[in-house]
């Protein structure tokens, strides 16, 4: 009896859905790590994702090639990231305010553009999307193959990205510099690291990755843009980053956990657990994470503080 419930809630199809739900969170949380490890809060991930989703769709619409759309999404995300860097690093604006402004801007920009370009509101026309693939070999393994054997290439790209971000941050000299800038910019400056340049690059990269996360929704998981389609995933990604203590593998684990919570709640609705309770599950987990129930989450020391050269 109990076992029936367990297999109903935890099985290959649920886990495979969890991975799909986690993918946009993984991209955006990696973006968050880049920005915050360099000392710049990035609450604008949500807006960067939304703009990435829209531009990914738009470029795909004109080129009919979703891979070029992906590049468009990355570039547009990077531009928004650069603007955030400009506000945070050059003009020393409160970083939360700048990020919030980006989120508000993104909603207006995408609604406006959708109407201007296509003359419609709500949903864009359909565009080609990045097709799902079966990985040779992997897809033939029972259970495991069912979970990760038939996924969108973007899912695999997200997983590989995590490894790269980890190696970059903890195994390369550039990663060391980036972390130094986020922990103690003055010390980094004294040893000749360009704090400003490092932060510009980190926040711009952050935007590019968030843009990819948005593009996953619009041109990989789905094949059209819808108003507000990121639906708060940028904030959940931020929570995943904090839950994962600003480390790539930690954030990956958190993103998959949130994705799993999301996938499971779809089935819990049928079991008779009240829907409203079930729908808030991912958010409750996020708050548990933020409240520090799973060990203290220590942010980079210089986070949120604009650097002033003396």
């Amino acid at each position: 009896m109990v076992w029936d419930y367990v297999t109903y809630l935890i099985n290959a199809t649920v886990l495979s859905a969890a991975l799909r739900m986690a993918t946009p969170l993984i991209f955006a949380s990696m973006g968050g790590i880049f920005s915050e490890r360099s000392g710049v809060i990035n609450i604008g991930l949500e807006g960067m994702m939304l703009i990435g989703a829209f531009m990914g769709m738009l470029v795909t619409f004109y080129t009919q090639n979703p891979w070029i759309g992906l590049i468009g999404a990355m570039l547009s995300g990077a531009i928004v990231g650069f603007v955030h860097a400009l506000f945070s690093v050059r003009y020393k604006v409160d970083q939360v305010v700048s990020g919030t402004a980006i989120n508000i801007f993104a909603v207006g920009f995408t609604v406006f553009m959708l109407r201007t370009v296509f003359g419609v509101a709500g949903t864009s026309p359909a565009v080609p999307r990045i097709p799902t693939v079966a990985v040779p070999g992997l897809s033939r393994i029972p259970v495991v193959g069912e979970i990760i054997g038939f996924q969108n290439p973007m899912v695999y790209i997200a997983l590989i990205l995590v490894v790269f971000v980890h190696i970059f941050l903890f195994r390369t000299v550039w990663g060391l510099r980036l972390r130094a800038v986020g922990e103690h910019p003055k010390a980094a400056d004294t040893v000749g690291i360009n704090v400003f340049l490092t932060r510009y690059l980190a926040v711009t990269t952050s935007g590019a990755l968030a843009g990819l996360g948005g593009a996953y929704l619009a041109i990989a998981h789905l094949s059209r843009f819808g108003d507000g389609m990121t639906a708060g995933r940028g904030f959940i990604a931020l929570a995943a980053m904090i839950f994962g203590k600003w480390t790539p593998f930690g954030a990956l684990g958190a993103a998959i956990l949130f994705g799993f919570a999301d996938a499971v709640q779809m089935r819990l609705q049928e079991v008779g657990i009240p829907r409203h309770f079930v729908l808030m599950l991912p958010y409750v987990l996020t708050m548990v994470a933020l409240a520090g129930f799973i060990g203290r989450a220590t942010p980079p020391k210089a986070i949120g503080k604009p650097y002033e050269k003396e």
Partner: protein
Amino acid sequence: MRRSWVLLLAGLFLAGAPLAVFAAGAEEEVDPDETRVGVVFSIGGLGDQSFNDAAYAGIQRAADDFGITFDFVEPDDVAEMEDHQRSFVEAGYDLVIAIGFLQESGLEAVAMDYPDARLAIVDAVVDEPNVASLIFKEHEGSFLVGALAAMMTESGTVGFVGGMEVPVIHNFQIGYEQGVEYIDPDVNVLVDYAGDFGDPGRGKELAISQRDRDADIIYHAAGGTGMGVFEAAEERDFYAIGVDDNQDHLAPGYILTSMLKRVDVAVYEVVEDLVAGEFRPGIHEFGVAEGGVGTTDFEYSRDIIPADVFDRLDEIREGIVAGDIDVVSAHD
């Protein structure tokens, strides 16, 4: 520090400015004999391929047929709606139509402040002596598509994906469930809510999840979230049923039909009444009998659905109109 704030605010202002320009100006000379109607649209505005476009089609048709003139505004947020209603009333429009349930509280206030104004609201009930409330029997239309789903399912399981769990959407759900049960009480109905009208990603996953549990026909009443249901239908090979507007073309061959909510019919009729000097405040219900809800003309699914299913559907339609089939609403 101060300079940066100014910069940021300037940037925000510039970003928002283009969005504020969609407002109608009614500056031309007014002919006192001419009947003028003001329309306040819902969020999303024209081009939404749904509610607002349908309302526009209705008022345009009324203008062509009765020679009235109309002006409209497309509000960007709920807070503006009451001001727009108020300015139409103060400008002396003969009738002000508010589209969508978001305008309910605004219109209530306006109705009380201007007892002589003639007002109408679509999709909500405002209980004031000068307001015509135009509402739809979503449950009746949903009953029809529920019956269709039950006749078409091969697995014996069908699905429903709702947007947010609000009374209106609940009305779609229970109508659908009654329609399914009317045909075959043994058909299982899976019901899931996305908790959001604008999250097609979750809509797709909900539909896939229902498909994994054997559902082979899925009806959505979930706004933009429903786009994901259509994409899942194409990818996982099942039939979807659309809602509100004719959505059949969004995934040709994968959408059996759409449950139409004829906002255009409601808007046209209230203007017709006005022109005839018979404006009637109170509740106007648009069900199957009034042509207010129903199915599409099956443009892409005509060859998929057998003739006897169409016949049965016609019988049911007639049964609802004649009152032989009583569909219970969520509001009863």
